């Protein structure tokens, strides 16, 4: 047997093995992609209906005797628009006589309708004395019905909208008094008990404030610590201990950091609950180890020859680091930091512990005003029984995903910019 034929024989086997290896990788990738696609498709499917909102037209007769005299801003504010809406509905459906039925009838429009009408009257008080048609939000159940998310064919007892209500709604539809429009509210308002009035802007702003605080704390501290540990710290048992502990901290479950924040920041230092400032500090604690580790890796990856070159022309250690090492390590530091910030943005558990799970309607105005964050908002809505919160949950997830993806995209862009390898 000669060498040539032996090699030829083994080559065939080698190729077979390589093909198998490649195929296995391919299959894994396809499985992964399928799961991802499935997830995305379900979320997008559920979320799209949240982008539209059903409105109902009500004709309100704004008689002057509904308002305290003289008519001014204060008297408009104190007027009972709820009563006017009810009156208008009774007029539209004169057959409804029973108390219980009337109650059902009133529930067609959203609880927020009276405030919406009040606000538009404050804006244009000249409407007083006329009868005006207002488009107001329908109740979330009606919205669900209109979107076909409540099945009108199942037995009455098993659905949340009664036959009577359906017949009233059908009447309104026939009169052209029901419409669906783009759901701006979802993007401009805070949380609410009523799904049709709830939005993610409050949580979004809370997330922005929280992550800003996290970034302002974790980035400078983390990078400085990494530079010190990597470039200046003596190698001894003490620094070894610190290093081991940083690695351990990176693996600590995030909720522990929440408990730490609760015990120290809130209970000991008396900082307020539910505010982005405290949330940001807690998340900064959580992200610090990862920022330090990734920054150290990036610093260590700068070739020693560049350091020697700098020292060789008489640069000091600090000049070497500032002029050569940090610029070369910047892309790596940036990538690591932003990835850990993105993780912080999606973090829920530690924020629950420090009270950012509270029900907050007002849009936060700063890092010191109570608020919640996107992932916690998702958690809150996912926990709510109303059918209309399901689509809002999905929509909020989609928003969070979009934010995360754009952050990652931004990182890639920044990195390419900084990387400008010579």
């Amino acid at each position: 047997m000669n060498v040539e034929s032996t090699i030829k024989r083994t080559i065939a086997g080698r190729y077979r093995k390589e093909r198998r290896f490649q195929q296995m990788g391919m299959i894994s990738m396809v499985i992964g992609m399928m799961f991802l696609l499935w997830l995305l498709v379900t979320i997008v499917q559920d979320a799209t209906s949240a982008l539209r909102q059903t409105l109902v037209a009500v004709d309100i007769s704004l008689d002057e005797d509904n308002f305290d005299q003289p008519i001014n801003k204060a008297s408009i504010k104190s007027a009972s628009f709820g009563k006017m809406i009810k009156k208008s509905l009774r007029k539209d459906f004169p057959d409804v006589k029973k108390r219980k039925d009337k109650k059902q009838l009133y529930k067609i429009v959203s609880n927020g309708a009276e405030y919406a009408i009040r606000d538009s009257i404050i804006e244009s008080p000249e409407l007083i004395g006329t009868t005006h048609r207002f488009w107001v939000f329908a109740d979330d159940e009606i919205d669900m019905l209109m979107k076909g998310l409540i099945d009108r064919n199942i037995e009455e007892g098993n659905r949340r909208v009664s036959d009577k209500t359906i017949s009233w709604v059908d009447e309104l539809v026939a009169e052209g008094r029901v419409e669906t429009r783009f759901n701006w509210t979802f993007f401009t308002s805070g949380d609410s008990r009523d799904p049709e009035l709830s939005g993610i802007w409050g949580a979004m702003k809370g997330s922005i404030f929280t992550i800003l605080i996290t970034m302002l704390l974790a980035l400078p501290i983390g990078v400085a610590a990494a530079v010190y540990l990597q470039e200046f710290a003596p190698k001894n048992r003490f620094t070894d201990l610190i290093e081991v502990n940083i690695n351990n901290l990176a693996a600590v479950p995030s909720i522990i950091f929440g408990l730490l924040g609760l015990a120290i920041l809130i209970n000991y230092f008396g900082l307020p609950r539910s505010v982005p400032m405290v949330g940001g500090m807690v998340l900064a604690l959580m992200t610090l180890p990862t920022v330090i580790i990734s920054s150290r890796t990036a610093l260590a990856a700068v070739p020693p020859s560049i350091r020697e070159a700098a020292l060789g022309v008489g640069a000091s250690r600090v000049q070497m680091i500032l002029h050569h090492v940090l610029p070369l390590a910047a892309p790596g530091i940036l990538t690591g930091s932003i990835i850990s910030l993105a993780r912080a943005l999606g973090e829920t558990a530690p924020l629950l512990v420090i009270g950012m799970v509270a029900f907050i309607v007002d849009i936060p105005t700063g890092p010191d005003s109570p608020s919640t964050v996107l992932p916690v908002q998702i958690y809150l809505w996912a926990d709510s029984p109303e059918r209309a919160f399901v689509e809002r949950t999905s929509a909020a997830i989609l928003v969070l995903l979009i934010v995360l993806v754009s952050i990652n995209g931004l990182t890639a862009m920044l990195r390419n910019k900084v990387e400008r390898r010579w």
Partner: protein
Amino acid sequence: MSFKENQEYQTVGNAFSDDPMITCRNVDVFYADKQAIFDVSLDIAKNEVLAMIGPSGCGKSTFLRCLNRMNDTIDICRVSGEITLHNENIHSRETDVVYLRARVGMVFQKPNPFPKSVYENVAYGPRLHGLAETKSDLNEIVESSLRRAGLWKEVKDRLEQAGTGLSGGQQQRLCIARAIAIQPEVILMDEPCSALDPIATSVIEELIDELKQQYSICIVTHSMQQAARVSQRTAYFHLGKLIEIGLTDDIFTHPVHELTEGYITGRFG
């Protein structure tokens, strides 16, 4: 006479000079527990070129790096013995290592330009030490340094391009230009011509001749011819020991130690 590694030894030849720029006495270097340089004593005179030759791994680079304390940057490396520049101990507390490295420039074995433009590579040192008052001063320094390193013609139209984008030999000449741009008194060159073609090599050798009018130069080389061409004195290292040192002409014509002779005549190395 056979040579045993851990035996006490005596350097053959006159290692000392009347007018030294650098003196080294009983220098030992350890990498962790492993000793890389054994009890080396020698002088580098003013306006001379000292060539260091020896087989690969014998500690030439290690010794060279002691002279500007570049070994400080290696954690496990420990240097003992006395090294002076202008009669000042370079390890003493008064000696500023930044100043030392500005006075004792270095060209490394592997070309290591900064990942910056050609211009920045050369201008970095002078700017750092405030050697140029104005922008045009700086331009002048950059141009003359590049000219002396024999690189100007090749890069004058691409000063803003990456230094790392040059060829290996061009990079080495860029590093030489960078080292001479701060006008050090001593230049340590670790195989500066190993990646250069004969023409570029002769440019560098001319530069060395020119530089020696003002400076002292210590050059590590694997080329006997080069050592013979550029140096006044030659030191032969073997397994961390300075075996023989003397006038280049003497070393190459009648080496005393059998190891030196063996290396020079190509019996090993």
